């Protein structure tokens, strides 16, 4: 399981902005929609906003993993977003959110969603890795940092 399979360099946003939760989600979703015109923008934003209303995916440590399922063929897609100063994303611990991983999965392949969610959440456990993501200067650097972190941990059998 490698994030490079689902994260296109064009979907790495190093200066994510937005003054409300919806705006942040729209900004996060934009590169994915540009890349994949078959994804319905309205549907996607709706799913994500609704999910955040049910309970925030920003838990602690400046991380949020907004996620949802849409009709999308068979692929899982991700967007990485960052705002080094932190945005208000309604996090459970009340702290600003700096790192965002948007995860979008196809409705038709339910079991994929949780596998990727578990993978991303587990990578973000490591505080050094989170700091390196905050310091990265280019999308390619983000991807190679992720790759390194994935290599550093044992492949689940």
């Amino acid at each position, binding site marked *: 399981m490698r994030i490079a399979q689902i994260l296109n360099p064009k979907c790495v946003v190093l200066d994510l902005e937005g003054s409300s939760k919806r705006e942040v989600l729209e900004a996060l979703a934009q590169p994915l929609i540009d890349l994949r015109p078959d994804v319905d923008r309205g549907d996607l934003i709706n799913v994500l906003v609704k999910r955040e209303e049910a309970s925030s995916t920003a*838990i602690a440590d400046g991380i949020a993993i907004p996620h949802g399922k849409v009709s999308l063929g068979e692929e899982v897609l991700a967007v990485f977003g960052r705002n080094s100063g932190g945005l208000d994303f309604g996090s459970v611990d009340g702290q600003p959110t700096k790192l965002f991983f948007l995860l979008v999965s196809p409705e038709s392949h339910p079991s994929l969603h*949780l596998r990727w969610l*578990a993978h991303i959440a587990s990578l973000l456990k490591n505080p050094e890795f989170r700091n390196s993501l905050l310091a990265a200067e280019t999308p390619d650097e983000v991807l190679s940092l992720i790759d390194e972190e994935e290599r550093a941990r044992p492949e689940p059998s």
Partner: protein
Amino acid sequence: MHIIIVGAGEVGRYLAQILIEERHDVTIVEQDEKVARELDDRLDAQIIRGTGISREALFRAGIRRTDLLLAVTQVDEVNLIAAMTAEKLANNCRTVARVRDPRYLYGTDAIKANEYGVDFLVGPERGVADQVVKLLEYDGPGQISQIADDKLTFLELPVMPHSTLVYATLEELRPELPERSDIVASLGNDGIRLLSGADRFQVGERIFVLCAPEDMKDFLRLTGSDGHHVEKVLLIGGGDIGYHVARALQRRKFDVTVIEKDNERCEQIAVKLRKSTIICGDGTEPSLLSDQMEEGQDAVVVLLEDDEKSLLIGIMSKHLGAKKVVTRVDKREYAPIAHKLGVDALISPRRAVADAILRFVRRGHIDSTTMLGDHQGELIDFRIDKDSKHELTEIPVKQIRLPRDAVIGAIVRDKEILVPRRGDETLRIGDHVFVVALREAVSELESVFA
């Protein structure tokens, strides 16, 4: 039922509390005046001051009319004599004696219950040792037990930061978890909660999971609870439990170190545990513990008799980087704080005795019961047989009228595990139904399945 409990220590008090709640008529025989007086104020039971080997005390306790005598003092011989005496004096009484010394239970000097006229001898120290070994072999966090003859796995998992359990709601999790697995309840500051689809979990809560053993690995991975593999184990306390754990672990190729305070005991076990490292020293000494943690111990098992010391050493081990900490603590009141401070699993020989006795007391349609949290809830195994109510096997389980605070978690049918998430399954004769219930719902539940 009229029940006499001999001995009001940790085990006796705990049993009394539960049995009184279940509306049994309980009489306690206790030698210590201060303890007896204190109990008189606290429990709705008759208290007789005296020893269990005194005929006079047993008569006063109502031995002639009693249905059950539980002899659970700290002293094995007192328990055995009390049970044997009861057998002679009573008209129709089942007897249970607690035995701690392993020599009475295993090997050439083992006592056979029926030779002494005792119905049930209970000494689960070895069982507790087996449980510790299982906890260390298991790759996940929290607590594991195998139930239904190992066909079903029961987990109590801490909800950890950065796990899927905090990023996804139960509604999102359920359809993606292995088919033969389910999260059945959670334990938080407000006690045990049975779950509905909209639930979400918070860091620090613990969830209860039923799953088929083959699906456990996948379950742990999907919930982000994997990666707690243990190779090097430090045991603090080389008593009977410690020795048995060490022996079983070295056989399973773990790297084992035992710290034991008593010189003589060290020599004794060193001869028998050749593949383990035995350190003669004080395991409660912080510098010794931190030296050991620097040696790269993955897990620490604290088996001291003193609850407070055990707990403190457990917390400290976690703080020093242990991946897994198992601590012996008999006072269940400490459980919430222990878990909060990082202790993965608590084991309690006394609690194990009491639970084994409760299972004996309740037998009938109930095959076994597992306590949840500080006995705020139970996981109960009901057997469906030809004497069970017919309607149970005629309607889908969702139509069975359960008490409000009870849910069916899993059904074991021969070797098969069914998790009735939608409740469409219908029970069959021979099934074992595993029901999770809050404490208040237990007696009502018994009438549903009786």
